[in-house]
């Protein structure tokens, strides 16, 4: 069995006017892998997925999907991939089964295969009983499930998912993931997804952290979290600057500001560090009041902050919207 990557990307770049949305990314995705692009809105995730799915032309660089060049072999790329979009793309006026039928017509799936396969997939996502209803009446989660079934109908070897759980409530999000992981198991399909939900990225085998069009970190979630080093201690005091100076002087430890207020300290053994820290604060200045101390294992959010100096959640929303508008206007021209 060959282990040739399903997706091979080299130096892929895309500009919209003077805005570089994807700035020379290089990575590969192995067969059967769940590979994720993690980054804030506007980081270039959707543009990257758009290029791999042949919806957008790259400005430069190379990308192969299933060995087919995304610029010169588009029809074969398209036949071999399934796609789940950020915005719903069902025909609301048609029933679930009719949506699947149209998909089968477009992908030239024979009628008998369509019936067998759609029943099997609908069953897997618990949608069989409602598949004859008009999609308009589906909940957000049901629509997503139907789109997943549709995306897998023609037996693609890669399923692309652009923010697959965007706008769904946490519980539904969890369910969608259960379905996706089950389907991956049974179908052996490779998944490439984008997300800005940290918890979601944890489901991936490997993650590329993307910021301002560039990959700033790539590896398994564990390996990435290893970069942070041990535990994360968050301490809130009434004089954070003072405490930061104390840590630096007395213990030689660097601190950084938690966007949500407080100081963050990375340390290998948090349980032993906390008493030490309290002692130093007490010795240096009794008047500094410690409000809370929190100890936890590092998350991908910590990794993102470490790599970019910013938090994913804390993105400036105006900036993001501006950029989307910019891109949309440009594309609409």
């Amino acid at each position, binding site marked *: 069995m060959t282990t040739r990557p399903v997706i091979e990307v080299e130096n892929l770049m895309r500009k919209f006017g003077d805005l570089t949305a994807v700035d020379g990314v290089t990575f590969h995705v192995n067969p059967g892998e769940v590979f994720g692009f993690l980054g804030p809105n506007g980081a270039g995730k959707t543009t990257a997925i*758009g290029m791999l*799915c*042949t*919806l*957008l*032309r790259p400005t430069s660089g190379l990308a192969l999907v299933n060995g087919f060049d995304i610029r010169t072999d588009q*029809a*074969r790329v*398209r*036949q071999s*991939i399934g*796609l789940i*979009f950020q*915005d*719903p*793309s*069902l*025909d609301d*006026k*048609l029933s679930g089964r*009719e949506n699947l039928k*149209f*998909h089968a*017509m*477009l*992908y*030239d799936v024979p009628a008998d295969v369509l019936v067998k396969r759609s029943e099997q997939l609908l069953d897997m996502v618990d949608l069989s009983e409602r598949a004859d209803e008009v999609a308009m009446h589906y909940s957000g989660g049901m629509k997503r499930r139907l789109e997943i079934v*549709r995306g897998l109908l023609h037996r693609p070897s890669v399923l692309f998912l652009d923010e697959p759980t965007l706008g769904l409530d946490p519980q539904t999000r969890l369910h969608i993931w259960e379905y996706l992981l089950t389907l991956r198991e049974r179908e052996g399909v490779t998944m490439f997804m984008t997300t800005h939900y940290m918890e979601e990225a944890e489901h991936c085998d490997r993650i590329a952290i993307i910021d301002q069009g560039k990959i700033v970190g790539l590896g398994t979630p564990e390996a990435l979290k290893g970069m942070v080093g041990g535990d994360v201690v968050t301490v809130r005091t009434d004089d954070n600057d003072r405490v930061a100076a104390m840590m630096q002087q007395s213990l030689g430890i660097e601190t950084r500001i938690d966007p949500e207020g407080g100081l963050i300290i990375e340390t290998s053994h948090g349980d032993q560090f906390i008493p030490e820290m309290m002692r130093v604060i007490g010795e240096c200045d009794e008047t500094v009041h410690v409000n809370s101390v929190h100890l936890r294992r590092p998350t991908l959010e910590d990794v993102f902050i470490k790599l970019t100096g910013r938090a994913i959640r804390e993105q400036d929303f105006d900036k993001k919207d501006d950029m989307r508008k910019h891109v*949309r*206007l440009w*594309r*609409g*021209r």
Partner: protein
Amino acid sequence: MENLKRNIKGAYTVWYRDVVRFRRDRMRIVSSLVMPVVYLFLFGSGLAPAMAEMGGGHIDFKQYMFPGVLTMTVLFTSVFSAVSIVWDREFGFLKEVMVAPVSRVAIALGKAAGGSTVALFQGVIVLLLAPVLGISLTIAQLITLAGLMVLLALMMTSLGILLAVRQPSMEGFHMLMNFVLLPMFFLSGAFFPLRGVPIWMDLLSRVDPVTYGVDPLRQVALRGVVPVQFMDVIALRPLTVNVIMMAIFAVLFLVPAVWLFGRQD
């Protein structure tokens, strides 16, 4: 060969979806009769006495208006189906079609065919009003009218795609509608004869593609209803000239529309 078959199937799928959706939408079928009725009976009945005086009693104005209303229905249905393409393209089902292994040319042609078919259906529904107006149509007339409506619909759907395909916003499209579509409609002679109008209007009406749709529809629909000598007055051009002009305009709109639609971002 395999590719061609697949693209034909793709175009057929896009067309079929439009037809299925139209068939299912009972409200749309009913409401497609509302505007024509309003125009014919509220507007037309109001103007009819005044027009009868001027026309020397040769024709009932409602009958004169009927082909214009037919045109209006086909025109607006066609252009609105084209808008849906753009909306679909950004936010909905068409995105799914755009990543399918089917060429964009096939998709655009399927959409143009779908929009035209729906416009034809709507036009045929309006034809049902003919007997109410005292216009009786033979089978031959009906078939000719249907053919003319198909051509008009294809021409206007193509124009709609062309206007809408690079529109970033719905507001922009509404502007276009007001600036392009309404003048086109009024300059076409749908509701008043183009004889004796100012020269600038005459010139504009000649470059207005809709003119070549209204004229033949009127000639065919009113054949046998109005006296022959009066028909000579209201008819502008021979049928064949109208048909050729519509065909030319259809190609002129369709080719760049398909090209723009198929262009990859």
